[in-house]
């Protein structure tokens, strides 16, 4: 490689890394406990609980919704999701004038309508997740972190290019532990950087895709779902809404063999202003992560469309497990955490190498 080309790549590597390192360190540090968020939520929140009336008929979804809204008068429903291992329906609602992102979340015992204990969403975990997702800045924060993710990809690619000239006389895996600190850390930086390259690129790229969730869903609504909303002028008021329970039954009938995951109410980012969006997922390991929404006209209660997700929504859905590493059991999570720690060392050693070089130069 010519000296000039080498300098150019070195410049790209230095600046793409320097600009993003602080934010990437924050993402790695907050991401570490988030890898184990299920286990941490379980440990922090778990309490012995049994449904009030396990053999009873139970409440239908309209009744559950009414109970939830009666505890937060004036709220409008946003989402409804369903626990897999207990008869609990989770209702997310918000006050019409609440700031963006501020919701009320209620797990409700479907056998009685009584509140059920939380099994997810411990405040500490939620704080870390919010910091990791958008630094409490909403969409601008998400997009900014997406930009940092792009810089990470540039840093990784330029790092791979620079790896060859650095390693042209050293066998793979060399760690000169008896040399000066700078040489030792350079060897660690090169080794950890090159062995984790595929994993870091996957986690970085999927992280960037995740930061684009809001624009991706908005584009999906404006294009694929536009025809469905063209016939309506104004959103239907909650008093005009058809039965939710019947809407979910229609969605299940339209997508047999799938599992109900959640319902997005009209006006949320996962639905239109005129439909219940009932999301069902498949039962294979892959399709568990891929949801298909059945859109039910909120006024008539009739099935309006089954809207198979376009490729970009599927990419978004698959980016979530591939970013958080929560799809292959505890063993995969432990390896994920170790690789996260390795990335922290790469970032720290890169910063150290830059600082020592500056000191030497001055």
């Amino acid at each position: 490689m010519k000296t000039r080309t080498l300098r150019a790549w070195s410049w790209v590597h230095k600046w793409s890394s320097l600009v993003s390192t602080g934010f990437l360190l924050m993402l790695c540090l907050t991401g570490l406990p988030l890898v184990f968020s299920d286990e941490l939520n379980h440990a922090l929140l778990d309490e012995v609980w049994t449904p009030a009336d396990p053999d009873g008929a139970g409440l239908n979804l309209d009744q559950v919704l009414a109970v939830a809204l009666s505890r937060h008068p004036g709220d409008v429903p946003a989402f409804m999701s369903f626990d897999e291992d207990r008869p609990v329906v989770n209702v997310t609602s918000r006050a019409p004038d609440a700031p963006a992102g501020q919701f009320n979340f209620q797990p409700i015992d479907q056998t009685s309508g009584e509140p059920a204990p939380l099994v997810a969403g411990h405040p500490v975990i939620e704080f870390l997740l919010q910091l990791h997702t958008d630094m409490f800045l909403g969409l601008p924060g998400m997009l900014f972190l997406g930009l940092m993710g792009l810089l990470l990809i540039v840093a990784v690619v330029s790092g791979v290019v620079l790896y060859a000239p650095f390693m042209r006389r050293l066998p793979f895996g060399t760690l000169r532990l008896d040399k000066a600190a700078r040489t030792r850390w350079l060897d660690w930086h090169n080794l950890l950087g090159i062995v984790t390259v595929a994993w870091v690129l996957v986690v970085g790229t999927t992280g960037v895709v995740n930061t684009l969730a809001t624009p991706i869903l908005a584009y999906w609504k404006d294009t694929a779902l536009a025809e469905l909303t063209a016939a309506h002028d104004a959103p239907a008021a909650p008093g005009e809404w058809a039965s939710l329970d019947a809407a979910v039954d229609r969605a299940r009938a339209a997508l047999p063999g799938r599992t109900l995951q959640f319902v997005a109410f009209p006006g949320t980012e996962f639905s239109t202003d005129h439909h219940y969006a009932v999301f069902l997922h498949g039962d294979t390991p892959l399709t568990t992560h891929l949801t298909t929404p059945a859109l039910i006209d909120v006024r008539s209660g009739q099935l309006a469309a089954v809207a198979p997700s376009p490729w970009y929504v599927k990419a978004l859905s698959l980016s979530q497990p591939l970013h958080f590493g929560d799809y292959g059991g505890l063993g995969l999570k432990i390896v994920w955490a170790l690789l996260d720690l390795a990335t922290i060392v790469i970032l720290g050693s890169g910063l150290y190498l830059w600082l020592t070089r500056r000191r030497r130069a001055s």
Partner: protein
Amino acid sequence: MSRQDLSPGTIFRMPLVLALLSLTGLVGALLADGVWDWIGTALLATIIVTIAWARLGRRR
């Protein structure tokens, strides 16, 4: 390139093998359950094993 220089093929052979193993692990664990979760974890863990080998081997 001097006579002692390693070829790009030699330099990138092991990193390429590790990248292929880890990508196979990442995708395999996503596409299938059960034993594939363990195979995927093991394939991804080859990175950790390599780091340990380099550290414990103290190669120069």
